[in-house]
């Protein structure tokens, strides 16, 4: 096997182990330095280790086989860069939050790196076995990250809830994998694509596929597997929540794209209405439940549910335009959410409550933080010229011709637009608290370290760059989805059997 294919994963694994070992020899007061080491290592891998995939290459393949468990193609490279950037920003954010994490902070860094490792493998998974191993690496690491603040009941509770619900989802996924394996005789996505026509009528295969999808939907926090998200987002330490919102969700997205459009595009096309209905329900649920929230992190948890719905909308389009829209949206979401969570974690590092009122007076305490938060919220709400606006536009555009032909998809589109309008209200609520909040007791300025400034600068620059000059990323995401083969649904000959 050509081990240079997985060089990025090897480097990240070594970095994570190195941070863990260095922790043994460093005195306590110098452990914060490990954050810089981890960040620098991820940055080096990001700038040096990533090459463009000239052609599709497989690793972990049987001798003489044309396909393998691990694939390196445009889509994988795109998402690997995405995950590395997300981890870099999360580590920078953690250096600011470190005092709250105590002496175990270097374990936090190495856990972030191990979760990153799982995501890097997820980006390349071409087999249900690697899909399962990568997802479990992510899930189990996040259980520890979520419950990292053992001094707080809320954090442990978030970890327990994620553990139980996550393990249930994985159990469903494993059982589904067993059924898929039994019916198709293979777990490889390319080999599955070759037999999908015959499998379309096999109830065992379809049941297995649904159970595997349930596991992925759990990762993405889509209705009806969204119940964990608000609690876990609220209870976890802010950097862990941020990584969960961006990295874990994007891992679910890339696996969903590969499974639906790489392995079983014909079956996926038959499920267009079910997926559309789920997307609409997810958007409406997330948007409506976010309205009464007072906790910032819980509000962002509901917002992330709604955003998962928008991402699924790009899948529902069953086209390459939709898939590249998903890639663009998730990139914009990365910059937006990480900018927002950087601000939130700076504030939460100073106070224990994450009530919206702790944002009051932020515009006077730190104009830079308030500005970055306002930009991020405007992008989440889809206000031009931010990344979120272009992203929503690219996701909704391929839906319009479909909606014109299909009344059900027209309802889905309307639900998505209603969700956008509702979301304006609660995102603006955060901006209002930061700029016009009343009853401020404490007006001491909030100092920001340069790690936070770098993270915020990358976040805000990314939001504006994708919003004002989206062409560069659109041109990068179009070849990335070339490996996917979405199929338009066959014309409505059996509209009754949906």
């Amino acid at each position, binding site marked *: 096997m050509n081990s240079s294919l997985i060089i990025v994963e090897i480097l990240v694994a070594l970095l994570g182990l190195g941070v863990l070992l260095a922790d043994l020899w460093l005195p306590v007061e110098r452990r914060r330095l490990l954050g810089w080491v981890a960040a620098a290592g991820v940055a080096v891998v990001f700038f040096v280790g990533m090459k463009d995939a000239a052609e599709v290459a497989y690793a972990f393949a049987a001798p003489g086989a044309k396909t393998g468990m691990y694939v390196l193609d445009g889509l994988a490279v795109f998402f690997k860069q995405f995950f590395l950037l997300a981890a870099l920003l999360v580590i920078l954010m953690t250096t600011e939050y470190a005092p709250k994490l105590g002496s175990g902070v270097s374990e936090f860094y190495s856990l972030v790196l191990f979760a990153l490792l799982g995501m890097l493998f997820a980006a390349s998974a071409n087999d*249900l*076995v690697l899909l*399962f*191993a990568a997802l*479990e690496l992510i899930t*189990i690491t996040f*259980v*520890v990250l979520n*419950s990292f603040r*053992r001094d707080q*009941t*809320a954090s*442990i*509770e*978030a*970890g*327990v*809830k994620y*553990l*139980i619900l996550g*393990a*249930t989802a*994985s*159990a*469903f996924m*494993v*059982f589904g*994998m*067993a*059924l898929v*394996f*039994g019916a198709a*005789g*293979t*777990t490889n996505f390319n080999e599955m694509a070759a037999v999908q026509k015959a499998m379309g009528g096999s109830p065992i295969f379809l049941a297995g596929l649904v159970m595997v999808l349930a596991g992925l939907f759990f990762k993405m926090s889509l209705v009806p597997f969204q119940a964990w998200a*608000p*609690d876990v987002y*609220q*209870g976890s330490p802010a950097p862990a929540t941020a990584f969960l919102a961006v990295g874990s969700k994007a891992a679910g997205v890339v696996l969903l794209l590969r499974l639906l459009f790489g392995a079983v595009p014909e079956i996926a096309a038959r499920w267009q209405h079910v997926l559309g209905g789920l997307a609409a329900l997810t958007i409406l649920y997330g948007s409506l439940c976010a309205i*009464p*929230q007072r906790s910032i992190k*819980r509000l962002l948890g509901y917002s992330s549910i709604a955003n998962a719905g928008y991402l699924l909308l790009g899948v529902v389009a069953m086209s390459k335009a939709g898939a590249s829209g998903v890639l663009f949206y998730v990139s914009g979401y990365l910059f937006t959410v990480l900018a927002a969570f950087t601000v939130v974690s700076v504030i939460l590092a100073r106070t224990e409550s994450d009530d919206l009122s702790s944002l009051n007076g932020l515009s006077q305490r730190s104009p830079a933080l308030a500005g970055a938060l306002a930009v991020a919220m405007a992008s989440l709400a889809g206000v031009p010229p931010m990344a979120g606006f272009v992203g929503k536009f690219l996701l909704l555009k391929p839906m319009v011709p479909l909606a014109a032909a299909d009344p059900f998809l027209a309802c889905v589109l309307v639900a998505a637009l209603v969700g956008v309008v509702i979301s304006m209200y609660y995102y603006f609520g955060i901006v209002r608290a930061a700029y016009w909040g009343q009853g401020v007791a404490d007006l001491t300025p909030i100092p920001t370290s340069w790690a936070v400034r770098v993270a915020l600068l990358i976040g805000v620059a990314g939001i504006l760059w994708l919003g004002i000059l989206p062409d560069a990323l659109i041109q990068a995401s179009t070849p990335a989805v070339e490996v996917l083969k979405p199929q338009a649904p066959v014309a409505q000959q059996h509209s009754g059997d949906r």
Partner: protein
Amino acid sequence: MSIQAGLGHYLVVSALLFCLGLLGVVARRNLLVIYMGLELMLNSANLALVAFSRFNNNLNGQVMVFFVITVAAAEVAVGLALIVALYRRRQTAHVEDLVSLKL
């Protein structure tokens, strides 16, 4: 007269085990018992994998079982540690007491 156990028998047993495990997760209130239910669900999937592997003459399913067992072991290690941490803090291992995160 003896009955030869076929693929269908194994699958029915595995589906029953899976449902029993799910019932344990949904109906029981003690975290440790819920955890046992989860392990039962994972192992029922293992049984299905091995049965498919045997009857389809394809060893890949057996290999996948090793992955599942390894992951389940990691999950148990983390999960039990977490339950102990919860017990130390709250002197409880019941899901009704997990109420600090709410609207």
